[in-house]
Structure formats: structure tokens, C-alpha cells
């Protein structure tokens, strides 16, 4: 298996492509694409700029693995898992309060499982290895620096930063992640728009496994996923906490333009979260192992680029495929799903001898027919709702105060009635009952 230090001899002078496909980026999207193509018997080279797959990648994170059922049967027996998520908690918070909806499922702790915590240096490497075992050629420490075009402007490969490092192929699959310089160069994507992106900053904290078990109510291999709303000083976004084997991942996700405007440093918001009375006791004594940052394309369906052009496809985060709709933060499964579909589409196009945009068009319809674009289409209005001012700045406090009003015993003053309580709490947070009702209806529509 290739510790590939050498770029495969490219057909520099000839017009014949050296490969059926060159896939740029060995993240989940790229490795899934390469896996599908190699399995179909196509020659494929997978180019990764980091020293190993996963070395440039950061997520929360939880991987939802069922998308692998068909390509790696029994994947759960071999995937590098930290813990299987059996508990999922959604927390609404203010600086001093929190209300959690806490769900636990025994079924999530058994095969085929639901979500797993894993780290990207290990998971991405594992998936890339699958592609290599199937016959793909992995080339690490190599940047695809631009697109090669023929006389008609059709994309015929990529330039790399290696000597004589041109890679010619029938099709280029751009799986180069959120900043996708290739999709931009191809003219498929408009220049980056800050408002469609959030910044995620994360701390991985050392904490012994048995301490994690005790504090979070877990048995070995069981994990928890906590999503938090209202913990980012009004900057649209949220927080997350995930348990790994012997570490805890804690971070915040922040709307870029609002972060810039607030003039707050991102690590201060993590510090806030770590000192929150609902979070601090979990982390007592934990020490920082690694700090990290990465962008998320949060705009959803309406901000996706054109996905196909002559000789090129775009998959995963490069095509803004992370589903980040408040209740969900899923990107790896969408990247894998789109990568597998890209691989299938390229295989069909090559078989038909037509790698033009028309020949590759089955990619889009394939995605529309499965979760990748179906989920995005269904929840296309969710990003705007979840990042809206009332949801972000008013409702967490409003909801916490409602619960406070119900559970704080004010003897000898009698308990307040529900309607009066709701009205006064809503008024305190600057929300009219009419707006509350309208937002409820809107939420039902968006998520229903």
C-alpha cells in the first residue's frame, strides 16, 4: 500500500489521460469517490495536500455510519471508533441557566448503531485505506494547484505542486472541502460569502475514560452528544460537547459575519462554555490536548454550487453539503453519500464515453433521489430560521425563564398560571405571544 511519495508518471506530453479520474482531497467525500471508482475497476488517483488523510480536517464530531452499509458491510467491526453515541442531549442555555432535552437509546449502543465519536486523523485515514485496498492510488503531501483544460476549455486534469506534477484524467472530482479553490476556479461557485459560513473552534481535552463514564453516566464504549444553543453571547451559532475514549471534544460554531462584528475572540466563547455551571462540572481537571479551527458551509440547499461541468464534478463540503440545521450537524455522512454518487456517475460517464456535463448529469439526479439532496431540500429554510435573531438571542432565555417560573417555588406567593407566566416571560424577552405562535408554526413548517 502506497506511502505515495511519488506522483505517478503523468502523461505530460500526450493527450491521453493517465487516469480515468483524479480525485482531489482525501476527506470522506474524496475517499468515498475513489473507493466507488476503484471498485468499479476504474483507475483513480486520490490527491491529498496533508501528510496523511485527516491531517487537515476538523469536525465535532460524530459520524453517522449507515451510509457505509453497502460499500463496507460490517463497517462497525473495523472502523476506528472512540465511543458509540447512546445519549443525545439538546440544551438551551443562558449564562446561568440551562434546559436540556435528553434522549437515550439502548438500540443506539448495538450494531448497526446510530452515531459514533471518532477523530478525523484516524477515520479519514481508515476510509482512504479502503480506497487504496480497492486499487486507488493515494498521493499525499501534494496540493492540486489548478485545473488543466484542453483547447475547448474542457477540464482534463489538475496541476500539482510536484515537479512534472500534472495529472491528466477523463474526469476531475473536486472533494477539496469548504474553501474549494477548484470549484471556484472552474466557475462553479461564486466567491465565498461569509454569511453562508460558520467558524468552528474546538478544544480536545484529556480526561480519563473512567471519569468520563462516571460523569456522563456511560459504560465503556458508550458516548454522549450534547448540542447547545444560547451559549455564544448572541452570535448566531451554538456549542457542542462529545465524549471520546479518553478525551472530550468541546467547541463552538459561530456565524462569520456576526463573529467579526462582535469583536469577540473565538477562544473566549469556548472559555465561557467551559465555565458554564452546566458544563464546568463535567470538565473539572481536564487539560487541553489540541486546539483546532475549521469552517463549515452552513448555507444549505439554496447556496450549493453547480455540481457538474465538462470533465468535473464537485462533492462534499466543496459543494456545501453539510446539513447544519440547528438540530443537526452532519457533514461526513453527506460527504460520503455524495462521493459514492460521484463515483457511480463518473463510472457511467466513462462507460458511455461522454464525460461532458451532460454525460455526468446523472450525479445530480442520483443525489436528489437519496438523502443527500432530499434532506437538504426538505430543510432548505432551516439555516435561516435557526440562525435567526429570535431563536438565537431570545428563545433560549425565554424558555429557561418559563421553566424557572414553573419550578421555582415562590411561597407564600401562589404559583402563576401558565398563560400569565408565558405572557410575562415573553414580554421580558421582548417577544409577543403572536410572534411566539408564528415562530412555532414556522418551525413546524420548516422541520415538519
Amino acid at each position, binding site marked *: 500500500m502506497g506511502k505515495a511519495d511519488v506522483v505517478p508518471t503523468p502523461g505530460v506530453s500526450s493527450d491521453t489521460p493517465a487516469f480515468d479520474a483524479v480525485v482531489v482531497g482525501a476527506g470522506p467525500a474524496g475517499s468515498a469517490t475513489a473507493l466507488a471508482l476503484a471498485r468499479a475497476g476504474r483507475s483513480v488517483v486520490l490527491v491529498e495536500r496533508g501528510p496523511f488523510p485527516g*491531517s487537515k480536517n476538523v469536525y465535532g464530531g460524530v459520524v453517522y455510519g449507515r451510509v457505509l452499509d453497502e460499500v463496507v458491510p460490517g463497517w462497525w467491526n473495523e472502523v476506528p471508533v472512540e465511543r458509540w453515541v447512546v445519549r443525545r442531549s439538546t440544551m438551551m442555555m443562558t449564562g446561568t441557566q440551562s434546559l436540556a432535552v435528553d434522549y437515550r437509546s439502548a438500540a443506539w449502543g448495538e450494531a448497526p448503531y446510530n452515531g459514533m465519536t471518532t477523530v478525523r*486523523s484516524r477515520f479519514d485515514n481508515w476510509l482512504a485505506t479502503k480506497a487504496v485496498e480497492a486499487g486507488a492510488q493515494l498521493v499525499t503531501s501534494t496540493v492540486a494547484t489548478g485545473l488543466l483544460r484542453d483547447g475547448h476549455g474542457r477540464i482534463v486534469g489538475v496541476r500539482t505542486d510536484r515537479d512534472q506534477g500534472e495529472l491528466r484524467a477523463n474526469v476531475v472530482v473536486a472533494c477539496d472541502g469548504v474553501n474549494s479553490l477548484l470549484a471556484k476556479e472552474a466557475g462553479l461557485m461564486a466567491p465565498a460569502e461569509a454569511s453562508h459560513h460558520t467558524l468552528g473552534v474546538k478544544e480536545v481535552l484529556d480526561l480519563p475514560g473512567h471519569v468520563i463514564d462516571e460523569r456522563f453516566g456511560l459504560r465503556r464504549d458508550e458516548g454522549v452528544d450534547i448540542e447547545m444553543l444560547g451559549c455564544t453571547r448572541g452570535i448566531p451559532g451554538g456549542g457542542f460537547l462529545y465524549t471520546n475514549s479518553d478525551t472530550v471534544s468541546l467547541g463552538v460554531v459561530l456565524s462569520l459575519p456576526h463573529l467579526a462584528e462582535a469583536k469577540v475572540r473565538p477562544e473566549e466563547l469556548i472559555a465561557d462554555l467551559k465555565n458554564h455551571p452546566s458544563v464546568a462540572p463535567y470538565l473539572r481537571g481536564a487539560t487541553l490536548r489540541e486546539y483546532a479551527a475549521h469552517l463549515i458551509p452552513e448555507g444549505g440547499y439554496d447556496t450549493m454550487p453547480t455540481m457538474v461541468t465538462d470533465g468535473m464534478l464537485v462533492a462534499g463540503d466543496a459543494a456545501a453539503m453539510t446539513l447544519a440545521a440547528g438540530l443537526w450537524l452532519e457533514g461526513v455522512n453527506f460527504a460520503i453519500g455524495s462521493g459514492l454518487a460521484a463515483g457511480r456517475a463518473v463510472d457511467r460517464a466513462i462507460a458511455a464515453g461522454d464525460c461532458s456535463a451532460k454525460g455526468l448529469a446523472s450525479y445530480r439526479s442520483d443525489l436528489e433521489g437519496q438523502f443527500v439532496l432530499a434532506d437538504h431540500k426538505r430543510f432548505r429554510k432551516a439555516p435561516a430560521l435557526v440562525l435567526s435573531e429570535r431563536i438565537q438571542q431570545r428563545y433560549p432565555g425565554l424558555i429557561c425563564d418559563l421553566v424557572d417560573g414553573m419550578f421555582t417555588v415562590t411561597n407564600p406567593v401562589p404559583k402563576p398560571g401558565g398563560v400569565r407566566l408565558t405572557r410575562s416571560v415573553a414580554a421580558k424577552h421582548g417577544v409577543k405571544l403572536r410572534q411566539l405562535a408564528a415562530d412555532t408554526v414556522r418551525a413546524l413548517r420548516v422541520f415538519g
Partner: protein
Amino acid sequence: MSAAGGVPGSGHEVPGGTWRGISFEDRMSTVEFRVGERAHITVDSDVCRSCTTKACVTACPANLFAPTSEGGILFNYEECFECGTCYMVCNHEGAITWTYPDGGLGVVFHHG
């Protein structure tokens, strides 16, 4: 261990354990950077002088943009996450030239 031969190593232990106590230097010392000779990002301080927001200064998670007394920006590319925040929040055309470091160089995450 793997197709690519990378060995996710162990991170640094940071003494103490109280969050506010971690200096930014200690925080960044937990991250591995394989620093290349070429600056993959450059900032044109002359353009920055006319910028009133200086959005990059607080938003860059690696804190690499330092305002100068002349109203410009002093930028150091060495400990960069390669995230893209800076060019997205900057609204001055030409202030930031943004590329990736050469292959194999730059940030290496072990617990991403």
C-alpha cells in the same frame, strides 16, 4: 499504520487546568505546525490602513493579525489553521492573498 503512513502522535499536556489560565501561546503549542518557507498567506498592509473594521484581528482563530501603530496589519503565516476565516470576513479587495501551504506542510491535526 496506514495507507498514507501518517502517525497521529500525542499532543502536549498543558499544566494547570483552569481555562482562563491558558495563555494563547500555550493554547497554540498544542497544535503541530510543519512550517514551510513560503508564506502561503500574505497581507497588504497598505490596503489595511484604510480598513475601519479590522475584522480579521479578532476573528482569526490563530490570532495572526496584529494591528500596527500606523494603522496597518502585521501578519505571520506560521501558525495558521488554513481555515479561510480571514479572507471571508475581509471586505477589502486585494488585502489578503490566500493559498494553501505546499504539500505536506502547514497545520497537522491529530485530534480533528
